[in-house]
């Protein structure tokens, strides 16, 4: 059982505040992804949980035990680093056995656990090699095996796939998900790759500027962004935003169209590109670029002077320079407060 509770954790480096009072609870065996652009504080948060960084204030609890004053070795965690950190002077076997030997396990147990995790990560045939004789993907496997062999309560991963090439990344992603689900550990996984986050996570914590903006299930984060930032960060292409003006009839004017909306004083209209379709009545869009992508076509247009993207069926005949009308799916329209940038529901 290893629930992780983070209470009011903040971190500043001199005048720079990397984290502003973060609160987060991660359930036992949950796969939590910390997602954000570089410099958003996600790695700092992970390193604070690991004990590699001391928080300026706040508490970290792992499995009902307060750990923020403990060194990394006493926290029951294992970590996978972005550059793998495979010890170059040790064989793969000794790398995986390193933590077990530190824990003074009997030799028979060490061998058994190393063999089992090596098998799990498909590196049994590499056990006698040194890090210098391994490819990036193999090193990655060694790093994960080394962490798994510890049978930790919590595995922390700092962008573990970002140094792999695209094809390998895809393969490792699926494999990691399977292996970690089976190991029944609580996982915190840091990435800037939204696809990785969506595909792996039980829950995603979207971070921006040292704050957690939203922590929710992937579909929820995607469908109902809690803030404008989440909508603009997640999704490729991201959400479209248009200014809205409140009309006398209580409806909202958006680019010459009227929509039902919230009862707020001011709001911004938002719609995902795939939630649009060509229709006789809708937002008038001036087509700039048409990119056929196979399964669908990405259309970049201008609506009311704003850049606007739509993902449409690939069998359409739209050409650049044309004017089309795009109708949004009504229940997919989202509204944001133009002042606070928070979602209005």
């Amino acid at each position, binding site marked *: 059982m290893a629930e992780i509770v983070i209470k009011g954790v903040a971190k500043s480096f001199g005048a720079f505040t990397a984290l502003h009072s973060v609160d987060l609870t991660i359930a036992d065996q949950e796969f939590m992804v910390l997602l954000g652009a570089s410099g958003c504080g996600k790695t700092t948060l992970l390193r604070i949980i690991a004990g590699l960084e001391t928080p300026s204030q706040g508490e970290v609890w792992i499995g009902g035990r307060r750990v923020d004053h403990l060194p990394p*070795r006493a926290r029951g965690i294992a970590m996978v680093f972005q550059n793998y950190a495979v010890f170059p002077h040790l064989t793969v076997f000794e790398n995986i056995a390193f933590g077990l030997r530190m824990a003074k396990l009997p030799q028979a147990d060490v061998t058994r656990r190393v063999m089992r995790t090596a098998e799990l990560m498909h590196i049994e045939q590499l056990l006698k090699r040194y890090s210098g004789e391994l490819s990036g993907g193999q090193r990655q496997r060694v790093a994960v095996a080394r962490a798994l062999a510890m049978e930790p309560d919590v595995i922390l991963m700092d962008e573990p796939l970002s140094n792999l090439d695209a094809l390998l990344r895809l393969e490792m992603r699926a494999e990691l998900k399977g292996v970690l689900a089976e190991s029944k550990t609580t996982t915190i996984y840091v990435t800037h790759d939204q696809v990785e986050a969506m595909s792996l996570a039980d829950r995603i914590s979207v971070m921006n500027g040292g704050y957690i903006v939203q922590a929710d299930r992937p579909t929820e984060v995607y469908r109902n962004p809690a803030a404008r930032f989440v909508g603009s960060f997640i999704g490729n292409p991201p959400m479209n935003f248009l200014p809205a003006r409140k009309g006398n009839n209580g409806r909202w004017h958006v680019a010459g169209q009227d929509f039902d909306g919230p009862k707020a004083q001011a709001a911004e209209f938002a719609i995902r590109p795939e939630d649009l379709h060509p229709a006789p009545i809708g937002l008038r869009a001036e087509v700039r670029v048409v990119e056929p992508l196979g399964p669908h076509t990405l259309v970049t247009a201008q609506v009311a002077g704003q850049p606007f993207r739509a993902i449409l069926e690939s069998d359409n005949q739209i050409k650049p320079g044309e004017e089309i009308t795009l109708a949004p799916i009504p229940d997919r329209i989202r509204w944001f407060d133009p002042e606070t940038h928070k979602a209005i529901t």
Partner: protein
Amino acid sequence: MSDLTPPAAPLQEARYAGRFLFWAGIGLLVLWVLVPIWFLFINALSAPSEVTSFPKRFWPSFDMASLQFFWNFQGVTNALWNSVKVAVLTMILSIGMGAPAGYALSRFDFPGKEFFRVLVIMTRAFPLPLLALPLAVMFIRTGLDDTILGLALVHAMLALPFAVLITYSLFSGIPVELEEAAWTLGCTRLQAFIKVVLPLALPGIMASAVFAFVISWNEVFAAAVLTIENRTLTAFLLQSLNVSPLPLKFAGGAALVMPALIFIFAVRKYLFAMWGIANR
């Protein structure tokens, strides 16, 4: 095309001249280093009668008489042994103090870090002759004068900047994540250092130790000023310079240069690392 040809010829000439200067410069530098060494060895390895003769032969006659004479000269073995003792002690002292400093410089941020780095090098800018008299007085007062330890302390001070800089660059070359990984796998800071950093840094630390050895081995001024009975080889040779015959000087010179050359050659890669040139 044709109107492009005339300026091409001077360009070619300039390039030729440039290349000539380049190789001439390299040639000069190489000769600058090699000719004295060649002289030293040819005279040390020739019969005493050949030392004063001219022209020189390119290959020495491999007559061991000069070296034998040197070896049997009164006080030489003793001085040689002193040199070894001082150099080994220098090595231990400068690594013992320099490696922790290098580690701290590479791993920790502390106020005055840059200033400290400059200060370390500045110790080399301080002229030893200026320091010699007060140092001698202080050593006599504390009883360190004419001891192996006293001289080794001075040599350690000379070697320390290099020890600090070389180990600093060594430790900086070892990713901090390796240490952090060791901490998460159950190591204390010290255990992580011993199990991960040390094995990786050891060859470089040895190299920097060898360099400290060579600095002490070749140092003559402090050795001459601070020792009387327990002279090192350099001080001994300096002292007996005007009373010893020429073959002895050459043999002594060769005996001094030889270990230094071999050692420096063996660790050259790490000495480049000190200046931030990537080692291959």
